[in-house]
């Protein structure tokens, strides 16, 4: 029999050294004078190069304030640290808990038909009359069956298009059928319609009120900008959207409608006007999104010009405007920053599916396309519209749940893009605040992991997090507002 000692390291290897012992940490430059040091659970400190060297070389005086701060935030432990490792393990488990919950977001693409002709459209819309691009009820039934195989206690059904209200009959059927099936499954269901609201009517509103359905709409900014970017016959897209927002607030409730903006080269230059429009329309949140490298956006060469640097300038100016709005007494939250702040300050991090490691594809979100295909994310089906089917997991009615969820199309990119084992990411101090984005890197580099030195996603994340940290650390007024968003 093999002695047990051969399989275990000596307990002395885990004991603190006479002075102190380092806990796992990562670091990098925040700016010319400061380094950011983080650990696996998202704690961070800013140090000078000398302080960092002193920490690593164990030259820190144990009676210094810095030593106490580093010890309190789990960057080192000593003989007085009773439960440093247990605490870290507990915090790590809390942050990773959502992985065990598995798929929560299920997107139903009810149709590719749309009445708008947005220049940046990412899903290759079809004409309003092209009903062959509608999802059929048989596929919807199979999709619901598929969805309830997820062990997640919270299931969100998001209806997308094209314009999903152009297939409202099926939307209504899916909601009622899901509620019916849920009498057995007993999950917490939430319904969201992602719509331009141009086809909103009394029937839709009554149905939404009855089932507490949320609406997510597009508002790109002031009327001129919105209508230029989201053309519609009669150029009345903006009017219809604004009227729709007001009707939902009145009929369903003020919190049942939110809006998203999509940036273009034009809008990158007028972030202040976009934010002012959101305030004027009574919104208390705005998501300063970056443009995805998919669909008509690529064909119209909108991604090349809207470079990461330009987007970062847009984000920084936008954040300043939003802070100013808050200073003036109007509460307004920026959603991308909020996700990052949750990762910085919340014990559970953020459940935003696009910033997870392992990536959120498949295990955070799934897409049932109008034609019965199942994709690992919304961006994955956008990629498929560009003839890259890398993340197509299978087809409803043909491939089983087990086959799709254990397919190479899902497991290979999940395994190969874990940040903890990706070059550059594995020792990046921003790892706890970031995520893997295999679909973005497949789209831009034809490789799910991607080389981060060439990655627009990486540059965007690094730039935004650095800026946010700088505002938090150097501006007490900004810090107060930013922390209130978590």
């Amino acid at each position: 029999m093999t002695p047990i000692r051969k399989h275990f390291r000596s307990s002395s290897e885990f004991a603190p050294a006479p002075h102190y012992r380092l806990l796992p940490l990562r670091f990098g430059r925040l700016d010319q004078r400061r380094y950011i040091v983080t650990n696996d659970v998202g704690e961070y400190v800013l140090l000078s190069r000398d302080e960092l060297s002193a920490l690593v070389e164990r030259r820190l005086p144990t009676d210094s304030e810095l030593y106490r701060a580093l010890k309190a935030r789990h960057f080192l432990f000593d003989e007085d640290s009773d439960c440093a490792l247990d605490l870290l393990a507990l915090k790590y488990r809390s942050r990773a808990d959502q992985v065990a919950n598995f798929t929560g977001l299920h997107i139903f693409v009810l149709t590719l038909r749309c009445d708008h002709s947005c220049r940046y459209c990412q899903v290759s819309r079809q004409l309003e009359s092209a009903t062959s691009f509608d999802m059929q009820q048989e596929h919807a039934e199979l999709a619901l069956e598929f969805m309830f195989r997820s062990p997640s206690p919270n299931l969100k059904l998001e209806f997308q298009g094209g314009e999903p209200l152009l297939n409202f009959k099926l939307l209504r059927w899916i909601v009622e059928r899901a509620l019916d099936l849920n009498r057995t499954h007993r999950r917490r269901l939430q319904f969201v319609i992602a719509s331009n609201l141009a086809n909103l009517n009394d029937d839709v509103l009554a149905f939404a009120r009855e089932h507490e359905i949320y609406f997510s709409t597009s508002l790109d900014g002031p009327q001129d900008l919105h209508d230029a970017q989201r053309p519609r016959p009669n150029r009345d897209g903006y009017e219809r959207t604004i009227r729709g927002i007001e009707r939902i607030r009145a009929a369903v409730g003020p919190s049942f409608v939110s809006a998203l903006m999509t940036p273009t080269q034009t809008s990158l230059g007028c972030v202040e006007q976009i934010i002012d429009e959101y305030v004027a329309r009574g919104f208390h949140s705005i998501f300063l999104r970056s443009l995805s490298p998919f669909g008509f956006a690529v064909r119209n060469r909108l991604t090349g010009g809207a470079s990461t640097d330009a987007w970062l300038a847009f984000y920084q100016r936008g954040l300043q405007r939003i802070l100013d709005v808050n200073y003036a007494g109007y509460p307004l939250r920026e959603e991308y920053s909020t996700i990052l702040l949750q990762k910085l300050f919340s014990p559970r991090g953020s459940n935003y599916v696009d910033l997870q490691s392992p990536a959120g594809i498949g295990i955070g979100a799934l897409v049932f396309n109008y034609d019965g295909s199942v994709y690992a994310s919304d961006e994955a089906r956008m990629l498929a519209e560009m003839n890259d089917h890398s993340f197509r997991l299978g087809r409803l009615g043909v491939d089983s749940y087990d086959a799709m969820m254990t397919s190479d199309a899902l497991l290979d990119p999940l395994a190969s893009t874990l940040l903890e084992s990706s070059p550059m990411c594995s020792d990046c101090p921003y790892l706890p605040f970031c995520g893997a984005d295999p679909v973005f890197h497949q789209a831009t580099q034809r490789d799910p992991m991607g080389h981060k030195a060439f990655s627009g996603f990486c540059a965007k994340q690094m730039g935004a997090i650095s800026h946010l940290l700088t505002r938090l650390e150097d501006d007490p007024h900004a810090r107060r507002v930013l922390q209130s968003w978590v």
Partner: protein
Amino acid sequence: MNDETIGAFDGRQIRVMIDLRSYRLSAVKKAGYRIAARCTLILGSPLEHDLPVTFTFKPGTDGSTANEAVRAYFQELLDQELRESVVEETAPLRALILAQAFSRTDLIRRG
């Protein structure tokens, strides 16, 4: 690393010699990966403790840009070397923390 071991920019490349007693090979490679958008590193065979490294730049790169990239590389190399020592020291602890974190999960039963 001292100035004598950094060659001049010849319009396309800069050749340097890195002392492997000061920097781990893994740190040399990782630092090179990080600056891949600025230049490509070609590692030669080590001679005793000296590793010949050639920094190759895109056509049209000027001398000051090239020299700045090499300076940034060595700054990054210092950080990377420090990271390697931290990882080496804390790797067993990280494994222990992760093992403890997931010791009471029911991932298998959930599946």
